[in-house]
């Protein structure tokens, strides 16, 4: 049974800039230009710029999906902060929110409207569904508008940048690493932790969806040299919702833990693991378990399960993480999920590049981004350059963006890795 499938048949667009805001932008542009001309003698070589507009492409209307809501809110918070402060940019900056409904054709259409419509935006961000991202790559290239992916993890996007750099160089992926590095991350966690966790033997359990292919490939490569016995390695059918036979087999094989990679099927998997009091541990990459509200929603079933994540509001991944978490909770009344951090960082990454370039000219911004090392909320963001694999993706590593692993302990997401951020150790079954 597919979880979280694309169900929406209605395109529900949330424009924070309607006709009134279009008039506001026109007024701001005119007054900014007028003010800029008046100060031209003092500005040296600074280029006169209009107001800046940011477009964010959500996978669904904001209130229907925590990833969408966080994506929108993260962008909004960044835009509001930048508008109130002149530290980075002085122009007014506003946000336009669109939903792709997880559909490639819709994503293509809204991106074209945003970037080549009546009032084109200066940058776009967001996108969660990998199929939508791939459908939008040509529009990004044709519009020559910098785009910062903050949700979709397919390596195919950055491979395209490598293959035809001049055309696709406007694509960047901010704050999250692609699925190849998700596999790398799982392997790094395993090597660093399985021994003290008591996981001498594991069952690798991966849902059979497109997004897990690169994860599984890299994880299995690395596990060959790892000091752990893989007693079971299952790529189970998409839509699986009855995990009884799988869990019975894991127990019959005597695995200490189920090392998992799940998104669509994650909820029934963790529900049944908890309800059935299984003897093996449970953790890995489990997207629903990243969500702060999931513990309450699933009535405590996540207790003892752990998952990779990019940040939590109370984990000081960088000096900015907790401040962002507090500001987010204060503004929106709930905790963010990963897409809030990455989208917030994307807007700031762009603003920083604009300041560096002294211009919103796309090519100049791209050049500034390629040299950028920006401390965001999820780590030190640097983009791989064209000579490296996965061009313009966030660089993975302890000194860049590394992610965290958090276990649900007594109803809280407690970081257990990396060591410098861990506030507790893994609690076994």
């Amino acid at each position, binding site marked *: *049974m*597919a*979880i*979280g*499938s694309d*169900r*929406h*048949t*209605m395109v529900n667009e949330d424009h924070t800039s309607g006709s009134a805001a279009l008039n506001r932008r026109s007024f701001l542009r005119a007054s900014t230009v007028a003010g800029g001309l008046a100060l031209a003698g003092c500005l040296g070589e600074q280029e006169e710029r209009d107001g800046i507009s940011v477009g964010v492409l959500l996978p*669904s209307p904001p*209130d*229907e*999906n*925590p990833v969408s809501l966080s994506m929108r809110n993260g962008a909004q918070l960044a835009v509001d902060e930048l508008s109130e402060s002149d530290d980075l940019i002085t122009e007014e900056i506003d946000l336009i929110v669109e939903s792709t409904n997880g559909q490639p054709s819709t994503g293509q259409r809204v991106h074209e409207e945003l970037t080549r419509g009546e009032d084109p935006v200066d940058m776009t961000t967001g996108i969660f569904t990998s199929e939508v991202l791939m459908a939008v790559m040509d529009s990004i290239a044709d519009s020559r508008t910098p785009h910062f992916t903050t949700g979709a993890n397919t390596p195919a996007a950055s491979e395209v940048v490598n293959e035809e750099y001049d055309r696709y160089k406007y694509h960047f992926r901010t704050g999250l690493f692609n699925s190849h590095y998700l596999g790398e991350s799982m392997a790094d966690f395993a090597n660093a932790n399985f021994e003290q966790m008591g996981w001498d033997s594991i069952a690798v359990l991966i849902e*059979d969806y497109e997004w897990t292919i690169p994860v599984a490939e890299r994880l299995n490569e690395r596990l060959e040299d790892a000091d752990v016995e893989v007693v079971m390695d*299952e*790529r*189970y*059918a*998409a*839509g*699986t*919702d*009855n995990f*009884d*036979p*799988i869990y*019975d*087999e894991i127990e*019959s094989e005597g695995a200490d833990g189920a090392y998992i990679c799940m998104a669509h099927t994650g*909820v*029934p998997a963790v*529900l*049944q693991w908890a*309800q*059935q*009091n299984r003897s093996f541990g449970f953790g890995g990459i489990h997207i*629903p378990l990243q*969500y702060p*509200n*999931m513990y309450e*929603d*699933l*009535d405590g*079933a996540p207790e003892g399960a752990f998952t990779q994540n990019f940040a939590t509001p109370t984990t000081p991944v960088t000096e900015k993480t907790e401040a962002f978490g507090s500001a987010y909770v204060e503004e929106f009344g709930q905790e963010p999920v990963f897409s809030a951090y990455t989208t917030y960082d994307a807007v700031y990454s762009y603003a920083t590049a604009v300041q560096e370039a002294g211009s919103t000219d796309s090519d100049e911004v791209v050049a500034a981004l390629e040299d950028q090392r920006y401390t965001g909320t999820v780590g030190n963001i640097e983009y791989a350059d064209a000579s490296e694999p996965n061009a313009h993706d966030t660089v993975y590593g302890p000194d860049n963006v590394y992610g965290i692993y958090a276990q649900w302990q007594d109803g809280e997401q407690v970081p257990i890795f990396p060591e410098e951020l861990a506030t507790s150790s893994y609690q076994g079954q």
Partner: protein
Amino acid sequence: MVSVINIVINSITISALYALIAIGFTLIFGVGGVLNLTYGAVITIGAYVVYAFTRGFVDIGIVGAIIPALIVGAVVSGVLYNWFIRHIQDEPIVVMILTLLIALVVEELFAVGAGSRERAIPLLWEGQLSVLGQTVQQNDIAVFVLSWLVIIGIFLFINRTTTGQAIVATSMSTKGAALVGINTTRINLYTWIISGMLAAIAGLFLGSKYGVYPGMGLNPLILAFTIVVLGGIGSIRGSVVGAYLIGTLEVLTASLVSHSLTQVIPLVVLVVVLIVKPEGLFGRPHTE
């Protein structure tokens, strides 16, 4: 490798759940030949009612929540028939389109009103016990027992009561039933109400095992359709056999072949059966 007893137990328990899902669907499909695509939506509504009465607005316990779930399932299904379906039930394509639209609207209403986040509802019977050396979930035992109570109850109702016999007569020939004085509209309404109650119960068990979310009714609907077609439209016995066949095949595939093929094998079997016996295993031709 798991044991034979383990495979048998898993087959029985999942098949019991599938039978519970399919019976409500087969009543409507068999009686009126109506492809009721709102069946999955009523499952969803039942699950959300249970959530509302256990973890939402109040907590009256999972057993207590069965009552409002049954009531709401019955009312929703009855209203659907009385207000919409009975006026167009002779036009199957229109019925299919209308029920599909209603199902989509229901899903969207829950997505907007409750959000798309999955939620848990309590198990009817928590805990495990040992059967023949195998650990069995007590909730699975509850599903098995309830499933067979429903099957036997429906069987007795259909075969031993006047209303039940009227349902059979209506399913065989609406004109013939009308000719002998059966109020076919009322019979259809009763059938829809019973189906709604069964859907609500299915929603309780599906929700507790898989989570409650707006789109949760789609897969059970497809499953029910598959089982009913396999077993034979209008045949309760066929639906039970079909459910156990599909459930067993799923577990056998998972345990002996591959976990990646569990969704495919039952569909392959369905195709084979329909080629060999198009009316299904126990199908009965619909007469006019």
